[in-house]
């Protein structure tokens, strides 16, 4: 059965698009059939992060408005066969996405793929609500910083009240990705600790992604970090997160670039 997963956060710029690309690619690299869907209408960027920007012909809004078939708007990744992207449109029209239109597209995507991964826009407005509405699983992306944690709490509340599952009285499966995590600053006590964030938000931890220049490099070249550098610390965090999404039980640690002392210092289990 297909799973619809929303990557959401409330706060902007915390790493939703980066996580959508990396998780989607990691799942596809393990053989799953995956589509990543950009819900950030007006400010699409997933195409750029995935390196598909030159190949966009149609987008989500074209499909919803009947100007294109879904199959025509889907772009197949050139590196990973089982990975596709459905771009957002650049229109400024806030009402370009209709609830019925999104529902129809989601239904069709469920038939074609194992995973439908929705990259939510920031905020708690209509766009974010439409992105989460059909989700079975939610990945809440949070930075270890007060305003991000507070906004994540808001979003968790919305996931439990405004989604289709919530309205049917079912529980939506929620996970936390703590990203842009700096082990050195955490060790010095300058950053919210993982334990504190987990205690406050009380949803299970899917992974800790360290702050890494590999993420910038990946977006420069237009590849999810799990493809651009699979050995890097952020890539390993996303690979593990993808395995946990598929039901594997793994201890959560903070992957580090350097082997040796650093590894030993920070590879502390936190879950």
């Amino acid at each position, binding site marked *: 059965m297909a799973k619809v997963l929303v990557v959401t956060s409330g706060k902007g710029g915390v790493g939703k698009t980066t996580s959508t690309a990396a998780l989607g690619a990691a799942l596809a690299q393990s053989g799953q059939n995956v589509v990543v869907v950009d819900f950030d209408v007006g400010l699409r960027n997933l195409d750029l992060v995935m390196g598909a920007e030159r*190949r966009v012909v149609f987008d989500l809004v074209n499909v919803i408005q009947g100007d294109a*078939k879904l*199959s025509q708007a889907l772009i197949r990744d050139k590196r990973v066969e089982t990975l596709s992207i459905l771009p957002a449109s650049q*229109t400024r029209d806030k009402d370009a996405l209709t609830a019925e239109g999104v529902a129809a597209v989601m239904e069709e995507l469920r038939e074609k793929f194992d995973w439908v991964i929705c990259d939510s826009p920031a905020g708690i407005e209509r766009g974010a609500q439409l992105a989460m509405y059909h989700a079975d699983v939610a990945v809440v992306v949070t930075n270890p910083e007060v305003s991000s944690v507070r906004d994540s709490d808001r979003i968790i509340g919305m996931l439990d009240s405004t989604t289709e599952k919530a309205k049917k009285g079912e529980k939506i499966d929620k996970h936390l990705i703590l990203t842009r995590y700096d082990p050195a600053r955490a060790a010095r006590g300058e950053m919210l600790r993982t334990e504190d964030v987990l205690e406050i938000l009380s949803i299970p931890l899917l992974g800790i992604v360290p702050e890494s220049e590999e993420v910038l490099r990946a977006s420069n070249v237009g590849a999810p970090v799990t493809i651009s*550098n699979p050995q890097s610390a952020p890539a390993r965090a996303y690979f593990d997160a993808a395995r946990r999404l598929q039901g594997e039980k793994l201890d959560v640690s903070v992957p580090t670039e350097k082997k040796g002392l650093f590894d030993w210092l920070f590879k502390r289990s936190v879950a």
Partner: protein
Amino acid sequence: MSFLANLFAKRNSAPVARDRLQILLAHERSAGEGHSDLLAKLHQEILEVIARHVAVDQDKVQVKLDRGSGCSLLEIDVEVPQLGSAKSRDADKRDA
């Protein structure tokens, strides 16, 4: 990745980013806010012309696009049923 490979890769990703952005923004700016660009228009009109002559199954149309700096490539694959067979020639005559 080794230290050297790391250095090398880092030095090379920013120019790649610049080139990608230049190509993309050139296309987006010429397309203008909310309007489809030339390639999208070409694609639409080509399909309209084909549809005038044969019944096109929208599910059998594949469009591929690769926007470049000097030139772009628009590839339209249309599955045309039984073109050139007796049947379709008859159909042509009827149309005429």
